[in-house]
């Protein structure tokens, strides 16, 4: 449905930044090399043929036991041209970092904090990379596939068999 977005990106980035593109269920996606993450995002925002003004969502995927382990996913939408695209960047476990998109869309700020909180992906250049959902005392990143399902990290508990 927005094949022209893929065409524009592939025409612009010819040095291997675009690893793969695809189209599924009427939505297009682009898998970019990690070091071109911000460049591709900026291009998609500014190019008159794509005009991705609106940052919809950003999250991460833990593809445990595959390489690279994590995917960072950004959903973009063009309000004026009514087209959308999904960006992927693979992030390896030993260096789970990617450049921040806050400089491109300010709205990415809390989404990146969420992805950091739950998956432990670090966003380089983020102005305030703190946990956003879990409490500061929490250890680990609970949506990683190797986080124990039954593990609890309570902040307070009352004494057993007390009336208070």
């Amino acid at each position, binding site marked *: 449905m927005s094949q022209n977005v893929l065409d524009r990106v592939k025409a612009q980035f010819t040095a291997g930044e675009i690893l793969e593109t695809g189209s599924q269920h009427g939505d297009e996606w682009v898998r970019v090399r990690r070091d071109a993450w911000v460049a591709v995002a900026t291009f998609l925002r500014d190019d008159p043929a794509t005009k991705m003004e609106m940052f919809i969502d950003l999250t991460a995927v833990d593809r445990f036991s595959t390489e690279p382990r994590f995917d960072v996913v950004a959903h973009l939408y063009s309000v004026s041209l009514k087209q959308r695209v999904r960006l992927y960047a693979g992030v390896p476990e030993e260096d789970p970092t990617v450049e921040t998109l806050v400089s491109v869309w300010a709205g990415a700020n809390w989404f990146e904090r969420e992805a950091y909180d739950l998956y432990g992906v670090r966003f380089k250049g983020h102005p305030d990379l703190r946990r956003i959902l879990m*409490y500061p005392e929490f250890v680990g990143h*609970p949506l990683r596939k190797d986080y124990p399902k039954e593990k*609890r990290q309570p902040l307070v508990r009352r004494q057993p068999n007390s009336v208070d």
Partner: protein
Amino acid sequence: MGLDFYTGKLADAVNWARKFSLFSYPFVTACCGMEYMSVAAPKYDIARFGAEFPRFSPRQADLLIIVGTITERQGPALRRIYDQMCEPKWVIAFGVCASTGGFYQNYSTMPGADQVVPVDVYIPGCPPRPEQVLDALILLQERIQRGEGHSQVQLKVESGHYDVPTTAIRPRTAHLPGGESGGKAPEGAG
């Protein structure tokens, strides 16, 4: 002897007054709040039982109604609210999430509000029907009249007027046929 007689009757009268003038603090965190509103609205009208007036300050309330899922992160806030309430005070866990964690079993959800505050009456349901809430309120009123709320027992223990181990508190089914033989209070409830 005479003094015992009069204090006993006075406690009954005070508890009778307490059970019909509950001031509730609704700690509403989730979808059960809709059902709570229904209970408070005219059709079911919790005011008929004297628990008319939600006070949105714990310092003016003696009934904490925990309505909805409690997360681990909310635990300190919930405990602080409970500690701010004047004694004697009572707690109702409204819905399965507040009672046991419900269908959440994960890193963030507290498995029941009784992990941080003593709960007097649990209401199952997802969400509970308003009739169940009214039934729970009546159960709580009976418990208040008997002086068996957690906070009431605590006060008696602290003042030395209660020599029964707190684990011997009757289960709240004791008034039902066969309930007395139902035996001991659930673990952790005493």
